[in-house]
């Protein structure tokens, strides 16, 4: 039986890596993927607690988060495509114009 806090450590590790990715990388796709990683870390927490209390509420929330992630990925990738078409770059720090 794995203690609950071990799930939290795993989640924390993934969360931190995700945050580091978002804050330090330049490539927008990698940033978007890091956000997915953060969402995923949250899911681990939810499911671990859900298992701890023997219910499924946490899992339902995790499903909502996955839905969210899907929506976010779709719109985010759409934006990246549009961005790439217009600026022909994938670097976040070159997104410095408010309109084009």
């Amino acid at each position, binding site marked *: 039986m794995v203690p609950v806090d071990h799930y939290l450590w795993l989640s924390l590790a993934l969360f931190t890596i995700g945050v580091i990715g978002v804050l330090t990388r330049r490539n927008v796709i990698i940033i978007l993927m890091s956000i997915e990683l953060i969402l995923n870390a949250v899911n681990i927490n939810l499911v671990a607690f859900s298992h701890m209390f023997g219910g499924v509420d946490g899992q339902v929330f995790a499903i909502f988060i996955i839905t969210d992630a899907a929506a976010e990925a779709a719109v985010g990738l759409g934006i990246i495509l549009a961005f*790439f*078409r217009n*600026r*022909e*770059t994938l670097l976040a*720090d*070159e997104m410095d114009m408010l309109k084009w």
Partner: protein
Amino acid sequence: MSDPRGTELSNVSATVLGADEIILNMGPQHPSTHGVLRVKLKLDGERVVDSECIIGYLHRGVEKIAEHRSYQQFAPYVDRMDYVAAVSNGLGYCEAVEKLLGTEAPIRARVVRTILTELQRIASHLLWLGTHALDIGALTPVFYCFREREEILKIFEKYCGARLTTHAFRIGGLQYETYDGFEQDVKRFCDDFAHRIDEYETLLTENRIWVGRTKGVGILSAADAIALGVTGPVLRASGVKWDLRKAMPYAAYDQYKFEIPTRETGDTYDRYVVRMEEMRQSRLICLQAIENIPTGPIMARIGKVLKPPPGEVYHSIEAPKGELGYYIVSDGTTQPYRVRVRPPSFINLQAFDKMARGSLVADVVAIIGTIDIVLGEVDR
């Protein structure tokens, strides 16, 4: 990389690399360019924005060779141009030289020539149909087409001993009498072919996928077709009723009744329908001709050494792929001074860019197929 952010680099490359335009090179060893045609496509996603046909991989200098051969010696060479319709090539050349000599083949020879040429037209169209369908992904018609084409090739073989590059005709007529049972063979083939062609049509004509793949694809308007000098089924599918067999009859075509099928839109489907109908009409011509082959000599009296008077001549026939013309200049010697061939495939290929622009990559294959090119003829 002095700048740690590398912005300079990215700015430079941005001008070099298009956002999503890529160059796709098809051929010269691509399975569906029917030989060694190379097509350079500029694609925007999957859509063609520009195309360029690069030819010449099969150039053998046929026209130049003619200048160093006597008129008879050059005759077999023309078979190697449109090698899937060798008989038609031979007919055009022989008639052109006959015209230059101011003579004409006897009527019996002309009728036999007509029969063989029409059989060759069917064979050529069958090969086109099979490969065209194969390009669009229908795997089965090609075998059916080859089955019938085989029958035609057998008739050729029995007649002159060769199947593909036949050299069936001679300047001034025919070298060989028809063999015993020639009429029966042709008749049997024609009777059989009537329902064979229906068989192909059940596989394709009404098939939703086939219609979807060919309708509205590679449209060529009548004006464009005329401007580009396109001839043959491609022209007729655009709605221009132009067929040299009717317009300037040669061989014995003036004796037979047949229709010139035309369509309006000029898309790939129309070209398909036109060629299918042409096969039917060719079959009818064969049947009419076989009924009554006149008796008489098969060779005009032209002598063994051909020395046409100085002068020039242009003679063209309706080959399976379009107008096949020979322009021959004679300087009075035994060898032509200059021979220039107007091959239908070469001219028709010009229309490719017109048809391909704005279509998808998958359509390019259909469009190459629908023009019905033979690279031996394009490159000569």
